[in-house]
């Protein structure tokens, strides 16, 4: 295909620069002050790589096709841009499903290219065993990421039921599916010409993706999204091996390790192993929650009582959770932050690593509402301070504040690191009702002496507190 050694070296050089820029992009992402420089580096790398590729096509291409090819490429780039812009402008609360969807798009691209390479190879020069084996990795990982991510996006967008769907022998069935796909892949490596088996393998990978995400509930989404991120990266790296493209191998390896690190952080934050998240422990959770729960007395408070307690405090910690995102309460929470800060009260936010539906979800929502990021504290940095905190205000978070995780060995979340909110002087919990959360785990925090339940919609309740605070002030 390539006849000009000069152009080959040129494109290699461009890809080398792009690789360096990609690594710099991630390096600069480590802290907010340099992060936007990281985006610029990534964008320059991307433009160089695409520009270089287009140029090389022009030099190497068969003349009779080149105009048509360029036409199609620019049409595709145009349509992709037209789809990408609205996807880049979604609401911040929709970021988890957008991210899942983009994992699906990335894997879709990789799977399609792999499929085309396979058929072109089989009809043409044949496919060596090595190339065929990475190609199988590429399309199996890509295929399962496409459907798995679409399922995750569907659950997050609530077009699919969020509740985990489990059935007897599920793990056995899933593992068998994967095993069959691997066996077919093994056969194809030795007999690439068995074209009737290729679609079967891709089909099984697609089905496996669906089956993988079906048993996963909302609370496990941060881990699953990270894991799918990792798979998307690995499939892209495999595509790099198939095409002999080192830039792709590097970008895929970076994405793969990023997703891997995030998955490890997420599973640690839930005290669960990878396999435990993937092969669902939720059957047990439901069984544990079915145990007898008699109604115990709780204390509740009105917005003006809550406002009075907050106004009298000097140190306040706000603990946001997924409920804040659902109620779109982040802007009202910022008003509360402003109103309390104006009175000289020290207000900070305690962010549990798995609060929300994806890694860093709460940080982005609060940043969107203009809460300064140096007020957002990680769990390990703030847990020691709860004993000196006057009021902890919990907004739409449940399991991440559950003291049973530390004391009750029979609790399904026993051992999960949680925020030590019960050590603060007063705890206030904004919650719709006493119904246990999605996972069905009762929270003993609600029955403690220092706890006040604030029943209502998070957004409405917080805005009522803000009203009381400003009313009392004027």
């Amino acid at each position: 295909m390539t006849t000009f050694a000069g152009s080959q070296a040129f494109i290699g050089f461009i890809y080398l620069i792009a690789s360096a820029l990609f690594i710099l992009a991630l390096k600069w992402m480590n802290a907010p002050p340099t992060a936007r420089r990281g985006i610029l580096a990534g964008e320059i790398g991307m433009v160089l790589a695409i520009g270089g590729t287009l140029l090389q096509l022009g030099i190497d291409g068969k003349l009779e096709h080149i105009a048509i090819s360029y036409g199609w490429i620019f049409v595709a780039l145009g349509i992709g841009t037209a789809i990408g812009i609205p996807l880049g402008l979604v609401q911040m609360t929709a970021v988890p499903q957008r991210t899942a969807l983009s994992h699906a798009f990335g894997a879709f691209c990789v799977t399609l290219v792999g499929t085309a390479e396979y058929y072109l190879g089989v009809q043409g020069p044949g496919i060596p065993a090595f190339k065929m084996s990475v190609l199988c990795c590429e399309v199996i990982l890509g295929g399962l990421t496409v459907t798995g991510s679409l399922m995750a996006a569907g659950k997050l967008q609530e077009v699919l039921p969020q509740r985990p769907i489990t059935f007897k022998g599920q793990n056995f069935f899933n593992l068998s599916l994967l095993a069959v796909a691997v066996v077919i892949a093994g056969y194809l490596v030795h007999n690439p010409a068995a074209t009737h088996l290729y679609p079967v393998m891709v089909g099984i990978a697609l089905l496996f993706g669906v089956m993988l995400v079906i048993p996963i509930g909302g609370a496990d989404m941060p881990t699953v999204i990270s894991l799918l991120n990792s798979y998307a990266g690995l499939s892209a790296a495999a595509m790099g091996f198939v095409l002999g493209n080192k830039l792709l191998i590097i970008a895929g390896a970076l994405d793969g390790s990023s997703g891997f690190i995030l998955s490890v952080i997420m599973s640690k934050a839930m005290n669960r192993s990878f396999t435990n998240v993937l092969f669902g422990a939720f059957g047990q959770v439901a069984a544990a929650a079915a145990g007898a729960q008699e109604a115990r007395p709780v204390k509740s408070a009105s917005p003006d009582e809550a406002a009075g307690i907050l106004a009298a405090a000097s140190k306040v910690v706000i603990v946001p959770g997924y409920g804040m995102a659902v109620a779109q309460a982040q802007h009202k929470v910022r008003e509360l932050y402003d109103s309390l800060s104006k009175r000289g009260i020290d207000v900070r936010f305690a962010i549990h690593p798995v609060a929300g539906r994806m890694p860093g979800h709460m940080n982005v929502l609060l940043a969107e509402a203009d809460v300064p990021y140096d007020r957002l504290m990680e769990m390990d940095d703030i847990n020691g301070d709860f004993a000196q905190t006057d009021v902890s205000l919990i907004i739409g978070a449940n399991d991440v504040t559950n003291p049973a995780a530390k004391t009750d060995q029979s609790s399904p979340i026993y051992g999960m690191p949680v925020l030590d909110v019960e050590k603060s002087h007063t705890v206030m919990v904004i919650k719709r009702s006493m119904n246990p959360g999605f996972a069905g785990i009762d929270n003993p925090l609600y029955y403690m002496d220092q706890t006040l339940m604030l029943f209502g919609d998070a957004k409405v309740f917080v805005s009522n507190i803000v009203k009381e605070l400003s009313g009392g002030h004027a």
Partner: protein
Amino acid sequence: MGSALIDGLFVFMMAGFIGFEVIKRISPLLHTPLMSITNALDAIAVVGAIVLVGRHESRPALILGILATIAATSNIVGGFLITDRMLRMFKSSRPTKS
């Protein structure tokens, strides 16, 4: 082929280690933007799709290549756009030097 495989594995291993060391240092504050920018960078797979379209070897391959290019391009554009929007929101309470 054998040496291409080893070359590729070397690159993969080094990039994996670099990625691990670099990403480990990223503040949890920025994990969401991290995921959206790696998504955009990962869409560099678009170069494979572009070459596929450019080679124009058969009609089905051309169609797959076009679809792949569309999917990857939307990730590039959408990924960089949303990462930038998110990062612009992160403000410190301390006055900046600008």
